[in-house]
């Protein structure tokens, strides 16, 4: 039901209480809450072209994207993800240090009780042989070079709804 001013005419009351009219008690004008996402770069990995591209893709898909900047430690990424209350954490990793740097992020999120409800995706250069270990540790999906942006965004949207095994 809409806001009804004191002493409103019958005509206005009829309009404001008409369920087919969207405006409700809430005064927010945004149609839905945009999902929040952190794109993170870990360790001595200085290449963030890919991170920029994915950040823009998520922005264009209507996400609110926080970018960590380069050379973050796992602890810093956990702090940023928790403080910003993101729904999605995307880690871009090209340095080969994923086995060292990603597990501490996952355990940090678990300590903050955020691993369960956060979608964690990894992109970049991750050898096939390492996928299983990361997925077992709590990563929801790994996207290699050449993955279409739509595929990543579609996956994240369905993982957020719980359609896919998280």
């Amino acid at each position: 039901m809409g806001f009804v001013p004191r002493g409103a005419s019958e005509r206005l009351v009829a309009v404001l209480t008409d369920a087919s009219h969207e405006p409700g008690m809430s005064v927010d004008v945004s149609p839905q809450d945009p999902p929040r996402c952190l794109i993170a770069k870990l360790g001595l990995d200085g290449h963030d072209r890919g991170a920029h591209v994915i950040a823009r893709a998520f922005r264009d898909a209507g996400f609110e994207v926080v970018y960590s900047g380069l050379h973050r430690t796992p602890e810093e990424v956990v702090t940023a993800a928790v403080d910003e209350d993101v729904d999605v954490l995307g880690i871009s990793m090209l340095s080969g240090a994923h086995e060292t740097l990603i597990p501490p992020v996952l355990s940090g999120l678990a300590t903050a009780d955020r691993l369960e409800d956060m979608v964690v995706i990894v992109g970049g250069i991750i050898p096939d042989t390492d996928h299983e270990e990361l997925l077992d540790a709590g990563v929801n999906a790994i996207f290699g070079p050449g993955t279409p942006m739509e595929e990543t965004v579609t996956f994240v949207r369905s993982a957020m709804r719980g359609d896919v095994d998280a």
Partner: protein
Amino acid sequence: MHEELVRQFHAGDRAALARVISVLENQSDGHRELLQHLYPSAGGASVIGVTGAPGVGKSTLVAALADLLRADATVAVLAVDPSSPTTGGAILGDRIRMPSANTDERIYVRSMSARGRQGGLAIATGVALTALDAFGFDRIIIETVGAGQSEVDIVDSADTTLVVTQPTSGDDIQLLKAGIIEIADIFVLNKADLPAADIAMLDLEALIAEQKHAGGWEPKVCETVATTTSGVDALTAAIATHQAWLREAGSDGHRSRTVATVSWIIAATLDQTKSTCVEQLTRDSDLIEAIHTGEQDPYATAFELLGADPV
């Protein structure tokens, strides 16, 4: 009510604080009860507002300021960035300039998107400030892009407002034209190591000399180089002077913020009522015809739709 969340919030859990801000910002179920519950714990924080054109160095300056303030206080930063008008998406980049945000638990940084809201953004930042205040932060810095009225509204909830400018920028004149000069308690000329800084400083001082400022506070001008933190200690001192002046003058920032939040909610609600009335009028040919035939004047129609006769 979010009982478990509230318990964790009061236990000092930052993940709970982060979630509380989301609930308030998104106006999710139970947000009003949550806000009501937070108010009795709020009122202890002092708020610094920072605004200025894009690229003048606000985020870097805020980081340097937060680094100094955290020596004897807990500090929260609320950083607002613009959103895309077409997709609603946003890149929130202020956090990149604030490295200590991720390493020092005495600093909390939260990025917020404008989400294309007008009055709604002011409400969202107002309730987020209340959450940060209730959580117990001593100092809260709110950073926003100085581009329009809604940003002026937001900074209006600050005890001390900094307007940041830089030398050799035509934007400064635009900024000053736009009326932002009237809200500044302290002007910060950032990037003061650039060659034209002397001239910019003279311009600013001349401008302030002509400016009548409400309440008797004469705005100060500070020069900084945020990247090297040069001048930031003097800025901190100027902020302290202003806040001492506020105390002397008996100003109550918490009370002003509460008045502002209620007024933003009223404004947004009236705005929505207006849209509904106009939509109704557009669809109702009889109402328009009644005006055209001389049966009723437009004022009467407006008041009828609104259900009130203000005269």
